[in-house]
């Protein structure tokens, strides 16, 4: 069941009632039960895989840590057990990713288990954190299994670390006042913006070979906006749901289109994935090759960006997406000192440099996203070449496209996107909360009740406008 479906709303509402009624010490167990019910509605078989991976990791990490802390001989065995565990989990992820594109000999094509890439990354980071001694292996299976299967994060992240999740158990403060607005904001991003812009994007990408110039450009420019609204909307819903159940998840986005370099873009886009890869892939690789100078930088960045690409799926398009970012990031890394010195010597150009940088980042990211979104690499390359055709008939071509896709959803989506950008820049929710905190208690309660009613009404309207045309989140399938 999708987060925007009526079934899910009913499930979440009933779950919340049950959750509030039960004593705090049972909440981890209830969360675990709810998460598995949620997962079983998708596939019982996939739930069995999830349980298997969880059990192997839980007991494997405990055994490895126990051996590692004892005498030198078994300490070596413990180290190897950790290595085997990481290899097993990586193999598990790779197997399903390959099977999803029917590339495993003797195995028929199987659907990717929901949330596979997210929960496997949670498990791998847990094992490595235990190995590096950052955390002690968890001794209680129920809290651990609830961490791996935590249903608000199962469908599309954010990828929370075990330490941060487990420290919040048992969940005592269920933040409806913070969680509900976050969910409605996410629904707005998904239904009023992403799905509206998505109509034009889908049209352009499915008919790319018969379009050119401004028509292709419109689709290419709109896709990053759609993807941001879609994926950050999914993250908002996940974080909001988590807050309702007393778990604060990590932020996944921080206004990525304000970034003035691609390096900064990745610090603001899908932050839990890049943070994960930074800690568990990039840093160990850079450390291992640190005396190789520039070659180490190029190698570590490329492995990291290729991993970002292939995390989405084993396709040439995702590989090209990763490689494009590798070119961007390597260029930035090798020129960073030069640029810093230039702007220090010319401080009056700093502001303009940032603005120009933001525009460049958008278009560079857009080019990489063409490979991400197009059906295959050859369509993407064809589109990027033919986007230059017919620039003289720019407005006529745009008119033809708008006539084909209808103007209304496009305008709604674009206005909605502007609302997102302004809302996330000025955060009216934060200053409203601060302002109303000075009011007397009864007035605050009245205000709270009115806001909640309005939010529920807004959620209802959004979901009703969406009824019957449930479009999955883009990041649900990874």
């Amino acid at each position, binding site marked *: 069941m999708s987060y925007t479906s009526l079934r899910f709303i009913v499930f979440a509402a009933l779950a919340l009632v049950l959750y509030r009624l039960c004593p705090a010490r049972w909440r981890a167990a209830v969360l675990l039960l709810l998460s598995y019910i949620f997962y079983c509605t998708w596939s019982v078989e996939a739930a069995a895989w999830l349980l298997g991976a969880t059990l192997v990791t839980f007991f494997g990490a405990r055994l490895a840590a126990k051996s590692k802390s004892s005498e030198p001989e078994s300490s070596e065995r413990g180290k190897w057990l950790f290595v085997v565990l990481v290899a097993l989990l990586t193999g598990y992820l790779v197997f399903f990713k390959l099977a999803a594109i029917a590339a495993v000999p003797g195995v028929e094509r199987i659907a990717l288990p929901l949330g596979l890439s997210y929960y496997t990354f949670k498990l791998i980071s847990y094992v490595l954190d235990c*190995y*590096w*001694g*950052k955390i002690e292996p968890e001794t209680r299976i129920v809290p651990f299994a609830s961490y791996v299967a935590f249903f608000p994060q199962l469908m599309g992240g954010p990828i929370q670390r075990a330490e941060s999740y487990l420290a919040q158990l048992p969940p005592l403060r269920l933040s409806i006042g913070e969680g509900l607005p976050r969910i409605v904001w996410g629904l707005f991003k998904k239904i009023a913006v992403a799905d509206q812009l998505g109509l034009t994007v889908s049209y352009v990408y499915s008919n790319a070979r018969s379009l050119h110039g401004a028509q292709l450009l419109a689709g290419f420019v709109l896709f990053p906006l759609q993807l941001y609204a879609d994926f950050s909307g999914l993250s908002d819903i996940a974080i909001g749901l988590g807050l309702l159940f007393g778990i604060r998840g990590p932020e996944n986005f921080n206004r990525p289109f304000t970034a003035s370099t691609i*390096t900064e873009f990745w*610090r603001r886009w899908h932050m839990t994935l890049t943070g994960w890869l*930074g*800690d568990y892939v*990039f*840093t*160990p690789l*850079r*450390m*291992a090759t*640190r*005396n190789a100078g520039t070659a180490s*930088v190029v190698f570590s*960045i490329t492995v990291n960006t290729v991993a970002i690409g292939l995390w989405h799926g084993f396709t040439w398009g995702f590989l090209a997406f990763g490689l494009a970012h590798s070119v961007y990031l390597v260029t930035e*890394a090798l020129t*960073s*000192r030069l640029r*810093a*010195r230039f702007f220090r010597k010319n401080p009056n150009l700093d502001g303009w440099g940032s603005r120009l940088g933001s525009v460049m980042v958008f278009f560079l990211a857009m080019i990489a996203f063409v490979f991400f979104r197009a059906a295959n690499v050859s369509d993407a390359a064809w589109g990027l070449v033919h986007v230059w055709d017919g620039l003289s008939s720019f407005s006529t071509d745009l008119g033809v496209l708008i006539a084909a896709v209808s103007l209304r959803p496009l305008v709604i989506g674009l206005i909605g996107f502007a609302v997102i950008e302004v809302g996330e820049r000025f955060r009216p929710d934060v200053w409203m909360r601060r302002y109303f905190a000075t009011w007397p208690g009864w007035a605050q309660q009245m205000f709270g009740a009115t806001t909640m009613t309005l939010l529920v009404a807004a959620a209802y309207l959004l979901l009703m406008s969406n009824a019957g045309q449930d479009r999955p989140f883009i990041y649900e399938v990874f």
Partner: protein
Amino acid sequence: MQADRREETILKLTEIFRDVLDHPDLVLSNDLTADQVDGWDSLSHIDLLVAIERAFKIKFATREVASLKNVGALIDLVVAKTEGAH
């Protein structure tokens, strides 16, 4: 004695940080973290570690680096690693 060595380490580390991060006025404090310093990202972080390794003639392991929380922890680690040399 211990305090002296810590002071000495901080002075030497400040010089390395200023040079690698290209921040001539940077002042180190125990609770300073990478997010608070412009240009201190995952790339320059390793450059810093390599420069520290060379200056103090020590070697870091990935696991030691992975669990560093702030500059204070880095100073402690360098002091502990150079203990044998004094």
